């Protein structure tokens, strides 16, 4: 573990060549309909551990990309934010919920992986000067994608509600530990799985595992790293000693073993079905409609993501 910067770097909007030509309508001028998150509840899922369930939806102009399970842990010496939120607006909402409940300082913010629904809330916490904790590969992943994501989020939410790209100030290459006085948080940097920058965490106070998007429950997983790697990392999650977990998407807390079984069930069908399609020369455009179709009723948003997952899996497995 290394702390490679004192202040988080933020990434402003630079002009992208060619892109000006393609700029869409100005959504920031449209009125918004008020925020569904106002009615979000935060649940205490363990002693001093608060989690808000994300919407089972994609980001929309109305929901501030509040689609991930975000939350915080109140320790003796300070507050650790387990997930920052999907936009600056979502992060601000979370910060307000924290301030309502405790006057302890916000000392740590975890950036669990590169996806926008997990990192764009970080801008709301820059004022607290916390340690931003991320996987050793997160900085380069954010360098490559942060601005791409930011532009798309701005198109949807407007610049004011989107916020900056915030980089980790503490990077975890293997494992690391944070002490909050009365509890320790142990981090594990995973190999390519859901993405190439997945970081999980276990809280010694409750025994809860925070696998972030290494665990999807009810909502179809989205594959953006390595299918074979994800199946490997599921085995690793089983060895960390937790029985309950806070998934990245789905209920605020679940029993770990059955949730991992459902996830690996889908990923295994995806792997085997894609391999079979490749072996039979089924082209990618046909494979996207047939592979894993038997899992359709088991997952929300299946039609939005399964075809994409097959596309990603096909590219990984066709070179086996």
């Amino acid at each position, binding site marked *: 573990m290394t702390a490679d910067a004192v202040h988080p770097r933020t990434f402003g909007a630079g002009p992208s060549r060619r892109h000006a030509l*393609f*700029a869409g309508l100005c959504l920031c001028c449209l009125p918004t309909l008020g925020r569904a998150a106002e009615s979000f509840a935060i649940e205490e899922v363990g002693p001093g551990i608060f989690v808000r369930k994300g919407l089972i939806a994609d980001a929309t102009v109305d929901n501030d990309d509040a689609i991930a399970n975000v939350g915080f842990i109140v320790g003796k010496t300070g507050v650790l934010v387990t997930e920052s939120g999907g936009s600056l607006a979502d992060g601000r909402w979370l910060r307000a919920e924290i301030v309502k409940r405790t006057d302890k300082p916000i000392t740590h913010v975890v950036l669990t992986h590169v996806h926008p629904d997990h990192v764009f809330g970080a801008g709301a916490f820059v004022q607290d000067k916390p340690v931003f904790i991320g996987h050793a590969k997160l900085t380069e992943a954010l360098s490559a994608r942060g601005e*791409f994501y930011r532009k798309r989020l701005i198109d949807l939410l407007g610049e004011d509600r989107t916020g900056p790209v915030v980089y980790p100030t503490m990077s975890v290459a293997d494992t690391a530990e944070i002490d909050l006085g009365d509890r320790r948080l142990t981090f594990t940097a995973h190999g390519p799985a859901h993405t190439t920058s997945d970081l999980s965490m276990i809280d010694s106070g409750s025994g809860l595992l925070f696998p972030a998007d290494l665990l999807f429950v009810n909502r179809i997983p989205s594959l*953006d790293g390595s299918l074979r790697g994800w199946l490997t990392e599921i085995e690793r999650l089983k060895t960390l000693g937790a029985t309950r977990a806070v998934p990245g998407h789905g209920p605020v807390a679940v029993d770990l073993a059955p949730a991992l079984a459902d996830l690996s069930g889908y990923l295994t069908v995806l792997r085997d079905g894609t391999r079979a399609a490749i072996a039979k020369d089924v082209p990618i455009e046909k494979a996207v409609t047939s592979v894993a179709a038997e899992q359709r009723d088991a997952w929300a948003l299946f039609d939005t993501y399964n075809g994409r997952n097959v596309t990603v899996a096909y590219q990984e497995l066709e070179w086996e």
Partner: protein
Amino acid sequence: MTHRIGKTLSTLGLGVVLATGAVSGPLVGMAQAAGASDTEHERAARWQEIAKSIFGDRQIAQTDSLVKIDAPVRALDAALVPITLTMPKDGQIKAVSLIIDDNPAPYAAKFEFGPAADPAELKLRVRVNNYTDMHAVVETQDGKLYEAKQFVKASGGCSAPMGMSDEEAMKGMGDMRLKFAETAPGKPVEATLMVRHPNFSGMQMNQVTREYTPARYIDKLTVSAGDRTVFTMTGDISIASNPVINFAFKPDGKPIQVAASDNQGGRWQHSFNPPSPTN
């Protein structure tokens, strides 16, 4: 409504999708996708301009029998849009060009067929940067041009980051595989050619320097059966990374030669044994 332009991010994370990514992933949907609001008339005018720049003053007739484009109406992944070109009239097709009108470099690829080709069906994977018309233009043996069109909804395919470092993306560059489908003896053989190559578009950001990775793409690829050409492809940045091309050829038992080059001087050559005529 299937299509709420501007309101849903399906491609950002869970919600933004990338070359590599999906949303809960990467944001999937897009806010008002570029090009989404253009009128039919504007699209037609743009095509006139592009066609003129490529084919000069030559007449291009419409066709629904000489070439057909199949593409998903809405791309699942804008950086990998599978395209099928069907050209059922055996012996009449000399070449086919694929143009993605609203891409930064619209002329995606040109295939010139040789005597060992069976151009009945050709598949390739492309990047699509905007809501756009796509055109296939065939040149027949008598030198005439015919076009077919398909509209595709996608966005960001050319600039979508690859999800790995440039170094990693270039690993094994030039490696190739050629797979043959089982075919009855005496019939054309269907083949799938896979080439390892990042095909950098010049619009993707380098993860370390945070500058744009210079365009580096396969610009020429020739497949021959023995000394007879199957096809020569001229390519550009619209071809997806790690190009995969499905085609058919008339085998004569001699090895299949593949020669590829890129715009930065990379050159690769591989030879593959053809499928045995007994199976």
